[in-house]
């Protein structure tokens, strides 16, 4: 029982990180970013290259990796996505998908298909009432919660955060108030990329780092966001908890295989019962 509680919390926290970035860029810029999983994989590979090849200390490597991926996200928005915004939304969707595949292919060309190892920041394990948890998982949990808290403070208590919220509510109205929507889109894409990269960096030590590692997290992020409601940040956190715990429960009670189906089953059930998700507005589209 306790092991489900603890492992579920760790998984949910990482899922929440992934889903929050995915829902943020959708809520603000209406971009459904299929390259989100690529950001996650890029984060993990950046840390790997920096530590294994360039021998940068792990903490600094993690920070550089997150910044680099954020820059990549901004560049993608500026160069590839923005010119397509006039076209039907489908073109943007295809473009983000193309970028995602391109990143995966480039990683495959540079690093090959075998799994890479990233060292843990915390080597020791901790004992919680008989449940052994590795330090890196504990760190991933606390860092995720800290990042989510920081994001909340940023959105609620800074001018930039207020501007982002304003654009998400009404891009045109925000422009009339003198908020540069286009720049906000870039910033949010960078922020979303940074959060996804942070998730990749945090899980890299206990996940196999392979070029295709971003695909399943993308599917999970999508499922969480559907459950929580597209575009809603609190919704995606609740969705992450729901999905993280149900996967853990299924993994512990049935088998790890069946836990893969949970996300798709959840998507189908939510779309039939309440299509807007738990926290989404009805007819958000």
């Amino acid at each position: 029982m306790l092991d489900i509680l603890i492992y579920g919390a760790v998984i949910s926290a990482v899922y929440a990180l992934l889903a929050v970035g995915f829902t943020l860029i959708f809520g603000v810029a209406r971009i459904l970013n299929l390259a989100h999983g690529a950001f996650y994989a890029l984060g993990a590979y950046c840390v790997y290259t920096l530590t294994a090849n360039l021998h940068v200390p792990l903490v600094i490597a993690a920070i550089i990796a997150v910044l680099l991926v954020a820059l990549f996200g901004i560049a993608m928005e500026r160069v590839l996505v923005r010119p397509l915004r006039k076209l039907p939304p489908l073109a943007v969707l295809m473009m983000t998908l193309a970028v995602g595949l391109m990143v995966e292919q480039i990683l495959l060309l540079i690093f090959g298909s075998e799994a890479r190892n990233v060292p843990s920041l915390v080597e020791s394990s901790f004992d919680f009432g008989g449940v052994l948890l590795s330090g890196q998982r504990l760190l991933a949990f606390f860092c995720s919660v800290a990042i989510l808290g920081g994001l909340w403070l940023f959105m609620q208590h800074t001018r930039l955060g207020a501007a982002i919220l304003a654009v998400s509510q009404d891009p045109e109205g925000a422009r009339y108030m003198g908020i540069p929507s286009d720049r906000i889109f870039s910033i949010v894409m960078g922020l979303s990329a940074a959060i996804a990269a942070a998730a990749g960096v945090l899980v890299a030590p206990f996940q196999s780092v392979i070029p295709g590692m971003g695909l399943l997290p993308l599917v999970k992020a999508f499922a969480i966001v559907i459950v929580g409601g597209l575009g809603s940040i609190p919704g995606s956190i609740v969705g992450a908890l729901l999905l993280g715990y149900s996967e853990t429960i299924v993994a512990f009670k049935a088998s790890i295989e069946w836990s893969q189906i949970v996300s798709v089953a959840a998507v189908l059930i939510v779309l039939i019962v309440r299509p807007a998700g738990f926290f989404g507005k009805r007819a958000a589209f």
Partner: protein
Amino acid sequence: MLAWGSLSKTDVIGAIIVVALLATAPFVGSRYIIGIMTVALCYAIWATSWDFMSGLTGRENFGHALFIGTGAYTAGFLNVSFGLSPWWGFPAAAIVAVLFSLLIGFPTLRLRGPYFALAMLSAAVVMQKLSIIFSETTGGQDGLNGLSPMLRSQVSAYYFTLGALVVTVTILKLIALSPWGTILRAIRGDEATCQAAGINVNFYKICALMISAAFAGFGGALYANYQLQVGPDLFDVALSINIIIMVYVGGMGSIYGPVGGALLLIGLTEGLRSFSEYRLWVYTLVLILILFFIPSGVIAPAWVRLRDWIRRSGATFARRANA
């Protein structure tokens, strides 16, 4: 009530010339080339069936491999595990693919927004994972091997696939030209107006997906029976994307364009054989360039231009002959 009228004589003659050219391939090409061509024709069936649903109604399907994979695995199971003749695989594959299309289409196609596209994408990914996880029944990474061949010679398999492609394109094109197709295109244009006109939009969208899935499943079974092997790569996202790129190159919503797109891209793949690692890279680059510069595609617009040119020069020729 088939709208033969909107197919001009030039269109039909053009199609016959293309089919005749494809039919001469076994006399010209080596065994190797015929093998590649057969695979390309399978891709053409998949791309055409994708175009029927997504090109006409404008609802993007990011997981067409779901239908292809389920069709191929159905054919594989019936043949390898139950020892049925390969011919049973075709109807069974189409039926199973249609069941999957109902499972995904019914909850998601009612909704506006990207739900359908993403649900298809994740369903295909999960099916691929499941096919690897339940490796006792599905053969895992190696898939199902040793299907018994349906046709003895390679050339007859090629002609069978070509025939299947011709039937697929003809049926789908005729539906697209019928009032049904008009409704599907109207849904792409403005869904709310269609609803206001009393059209049951969801019914048409789900039916279009079922038809698309049936042909994709059939194409999957065809591919399985030709390759005599089924693997989890038939559920791959890369396969879904390749198909979408072929349709983009061919021209969305034209039904015949994707056939050209498939042949062109498989040809390109063969040309880049020595750089096989860079293949998907090139594909995605092609996609990005097309999205930026020629969003209406290559093959279908090219044919429309050629046809107009033939008509114009034909008219001047007739005028001169009369004078």
